[in-house]
């Protein structure tokens, strides 16, 4: 079985799993873990969009 994700899907799942681990391991309280995980997830995906637009501008 071969899984072929789109570029965005691959980046999305990468961000999701990395954010979960960062959230749990880098904060102590449960609510802080959730907040930090969401922050990391937003930064990951935000970085994807920024990089995407930068590449688009370089191309055009």
């Amino acid at each position, binding site marked *: *079985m*071969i*899984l*072929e*994700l789109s*570029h965005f899907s*691959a980046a999305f*799942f*990468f961000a*999701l*799993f*990395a954010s*979960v*681990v*960062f959230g*749990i*391991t880098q904060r*102590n309280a449960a609510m802080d873990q959730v907040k930090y995980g969401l922050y990391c997830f937003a930064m990951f995906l935000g970085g994807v969009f920024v990089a995407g637009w930068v590449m688009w501008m370089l191309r055009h």
Partner: protein
Amino acid sequence: MSNSTVSKPRAAEAAQTQPLSAMAVLASLVGWLVPGAGHLILRRYVRGLILMASIVTMFVLGLLMQGHVYKPNGGDILDILGFVGNIGAGGLYFLTLAKDWGQGAIAHATADYGTKYLIVAGLLNFIAVADAYHIAIGKKP
């Protein structure tokens, strides 16, 4: 004066931190071999199960995307670093080698993503192991 204000919290933290114990070593070792299991034996069941699900799923997705699994090598520095990342997954890595998975040629774009998934899953497991160790020595609740 400033030294006394800085040293008080450190002294309090040091008082709470337990010396290296057998449980700390065991939790680290088990957590490396089975992602999340270090937290489970320390009775952090929810954290352990979430870590296990995240890291194992990431590793399996990497394999399904036909990512490359690095073997021990002394060649290119990137290959060596790839191996270091891969071996962080512990038991998953040894199982993968035993089954000879992840040895195909990278034939499409997502396979390269798969390689990165496999490496990062191992690196995330290193972080999880460190977290289990900190819990075991009382540095983290």
